[in-house]
């Protein structure tokens, strides 16, 4: 667990399809710094580089140039294995399409990131049960994802993202697949958990309602930071 870390992107550029003229520059020289416990929204038109930025922050992808630093240490140049270990312990993901594993029950999905870290099944179960209670799905632990509504699936995904108590929670369009009622509930939940755990929360969204809840608003355009607005506490 690396809660409370300062995260920086220093001169980050990401080019897809090679560095020649045919390459697509998704991000261009991004410099950003996220203080511990911030709630940040990233907005911008389609193709501006939002998801790429999120993937780089989450070490799912590596920058073509530049560094991704946690407490000043570049964590993006490690091996795939090192980055995976870092993701497991320090970063939680919430995806637009939930990405729960359909062959596992709700409890098993939440327990999944704990498997490499906690040997005791009882302890894993207890942690998963606690998280499921906190997202209001304690009674549905034995269900499969296909037996849940979209809102419930996303709440399970949030529980899974937080089960290892990560320092950074990344959410890519977390309400994109939900109706407004469920979207509101999910956002309330994310916000409450962010406040309660002091987790840095970075949300990519098109939805102004989602963005409105954040305290810092980044807007990207053509792979560059167009604006970076911080609300006063």
């Amino acid at each position, binding site marked *: 667990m690396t809660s409370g870390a300062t995260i920086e992107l220093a001169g980050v550029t990401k080019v897809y399809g090679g560095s020649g003229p045919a390459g697509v520059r998704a991000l261009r020289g991004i410099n950003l710094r996220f203080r511990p416990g911030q709630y940040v929204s990233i907005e911008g038109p389609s193709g501006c580089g939002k998801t790429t930025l999120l993937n780089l922050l989450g070490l799912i992808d590596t920058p073509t140039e530049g560094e991704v630093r946690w407490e000043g240490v570049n964590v993006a140049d490690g091996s795939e*294995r090192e980055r995976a270990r870092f993701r497991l312990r320090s*970063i939680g993901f919430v995806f637009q399409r939930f990405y729960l594993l359909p062959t596992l029950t709700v409890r098993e999905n939440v327990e999944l990131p704990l498997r490499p870290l906690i040997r005791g099944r009882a302890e894993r179960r207890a942690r998963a049960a606690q998280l499921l209670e906190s997202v209001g799905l304690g009674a549905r632990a034995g269900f499969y994802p296909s037996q849940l509504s979209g809102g419930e699936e996303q709440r399970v995904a949030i529980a899974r993202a937080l089960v290892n108590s990560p320092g950074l929670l990344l959410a890519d369009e977390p309400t994109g697949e939900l109706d407004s009622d469920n979207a509101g509930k999910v956002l309330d939940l994310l916000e409450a958990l962010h406040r309660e755990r002091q987790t840095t929360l970075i949300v990519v969204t098109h939805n102004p309602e989602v963005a409105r809840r954040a305290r810092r608003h980044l807007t990207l355009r053509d792979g560059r930071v167009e604006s970076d607005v911080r609300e006063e506490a």
Partner: protein
Amino acid sequence: MSERPPPGGRKPGSLPGLLAVVAMAAAITLPVVLLSVGGGVSSHEIARLQASGYQIVVSGPGTAGIDLAHQRVVQIGAIPGVGAVSPTLTMPIDLRGPGGRWVPLLAEGIIPSAYYATLGSTASQVFSAPPNLGDPTDMIHYQNGSYEGPVSPDVLINTTLAQDDHLTVGDSVTLAPAANDSGAVTYTVTGTFNVVSSLFSTSGNYGIFLPLSNLQVLTGLARTGPGAGTLLDAADSIHVGLTGTASTSPTQIDRVEAAIHALMPYYGVSTLSQEASQLEGAASILNGFYLVLSSVGLAIGFVFLTLVLVRRVEAERREIGIRRALGLPARSIAATIVARAVVLGGMGALLGVASGVVTVTLLARVGSAPVQAASRLALFEPMQLIALALGALALAGLASAVAVRRALRLPLPEALR
């Protein structure tokens, strides 16, 4: 309080997985059948050889390649340590019973007392005394020179033939070299014998015994008479039984073998242990051949399983991507794929072994007569079956390695797309 989940949550079973199991099972079935039947027949032959009542065998080239058979009985019999010398001649002939039907048969010409002495322990299941075929030494009419005189046209027939053609002891039958009366001779049935598969295989169903000289006369392979020129008196092989310590001492057996060789330098003379080792060598070569043949099936099973696993990786690329995005170690992702491969390979191996056993059992019941006889001798060696199952698991492991490599090389952002 937890709620009861509604039905139908899990994914349905996979048809390609089932097909992979079937492919592996088919690949394992072939070696199980080949090795069990081939090994069984070889073991049976070796056991039969070891249970023989003779230690040395003389063989001539081709059919009826040994001449002067009766004379050689006397010559070989004079070698110290030799207890019995039994020449045999096996020829196809035709038999006509009281019903008038011609039946093609395999006739075994023997010298009754010598034959009995060299039959060994399994012979007791067939004959309790030298076969009742008139002159036990088959020498009276032979010594007469022209095969005339007090001949004894006796024949023993097997019980299957006796039942099929309603023949009993005392009946007259006609034997001829071909299915017509040309050269036909009337014989008297002096006894019947049970067909013991361990001794005669299926050819026993079509077998009869008669004195060696009678069969020689019937098939034109007799001695033509003093001064007549050609001296046939043919046989296929001569079995030589030893007595006392000569029968067990390798040195003495070799000594007698050398003495026989000196008498008959143009014939093959080999000891039973040489025969057994030749048979074992042939069995090993055949087993190797069976394994090579089976490897084709196993290769197909392997390719199929690999394709199924790679296809599953492709189909589950997002799930694999999710696991990797969550930070699960590569080994846990690999373990999932390997476990799946081992389950499919293991199920295929178990099904294949079971299917092989069932196939052999069915062949022993519904195959053609030779196939039935061979299948009944099948030996299912546990170590061999375990080795085959482990081989299937090793192939599954290899197949999973290809799939794991594929899974771990998926670009993560693409896998999550």
